[in-house]
């Protein structure tokens, strides 16, 4: 049956790969902490932090959570809708930025 071939496909990455991914994640975290120490302007800081976090999340999902070595159909079933739903939450960003200007003067 096909279960035998599945076992062979399971060995996708070696402990050396995992250690390398771990080191990259630590370095990216270090860069983030350095940015916080340097007190970068808020919007630049937010953009870089979110960007680095997405890279870190992608590394964790691809290697630690093994998704890189799964079938493409699993990725296509799970992630496009997740990304779409998260992006939908940005709809309220405009309202959030307007509220401070709509406060009655104290």
């Amino acid at each position, binding site marked *: 049956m096909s279960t035998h071939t599945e076992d062979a496909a399971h060995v996708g990455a070696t402990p050396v790969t995992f250690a390398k991914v771990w080191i990259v994640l630590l370095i990216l975290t270090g860069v983030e902490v350095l940015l916080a120490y340097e007190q970068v302007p808020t919007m630049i800081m937010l953009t870089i932090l979110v960007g680095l976090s997405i890279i870190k999340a992608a590394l964790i999902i691809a290697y630690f959570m093994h998704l890189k070595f799964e079938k493409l*159909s699993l990725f296509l079933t799970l992630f496009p809708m997740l990304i779409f739903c998260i992006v939908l939450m940005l709809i309220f960003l405009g309202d959030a930025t307007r509220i*401070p200007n709509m406060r009655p003067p104290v």
Partner: protein
Amino acid sequence: MSSQVSVAARPSVWDGGQSPYATNSKKFGMWLFIISDSLTFSALLFAYTYSRVTNPDWPKPFDFTPAIIFSTVMTFCLLSSSLTMVMAVNAMNHGNRKATAGWILATMVGGGGFVVLHLSEWLKLINVEHVTAFDNPWGVPLFGGTFFALTGLHMTHVIIGLIYLAIMGQGVMRGKFKAEDVEVSGLYWHFVDLVWMFIFPLVYLMSARVG
């Protein structure tokens, strides 16, 4: 014509009777849970961010030393526990149950360290800085509400993960679970780590106070 016939006759994984994702059902179920749970967490992260944007006087309660250094150590604990978890899955795939239990124990030490550090940080915020879920000295009650909801839900996930791993660890020692069961618990643990990779920069680093 003959090519059309051969296309129609070729069996597809989508015809039914086999797993089109080539995974077992437990793993697929855990993936579905992870996707829905990540929507919960992203909703809370968006709630935190929007509350922050609507309040120009949002506090920056985290001094670089010690609070940011402290939470960096917590991040290190969680990241390293992810590495040991992946080693546990690797050992179980090679049929080495003793090594698997050892790696799971190491993962629990990392996760336990995270919870202890996180709780001591909570207690410092509550007892020293007088921040509660409803009030704080800076007059922005939403800070406490969103902060404790977000980090509290994450800490709950870590504690549930520790219980899950404890069950897996002792089961593996007694020869109970299969390799895919450890892999499924690993998926959950990596997800907890992944969520922290967003909470740490957005909640802690964005509120860092230097000097």
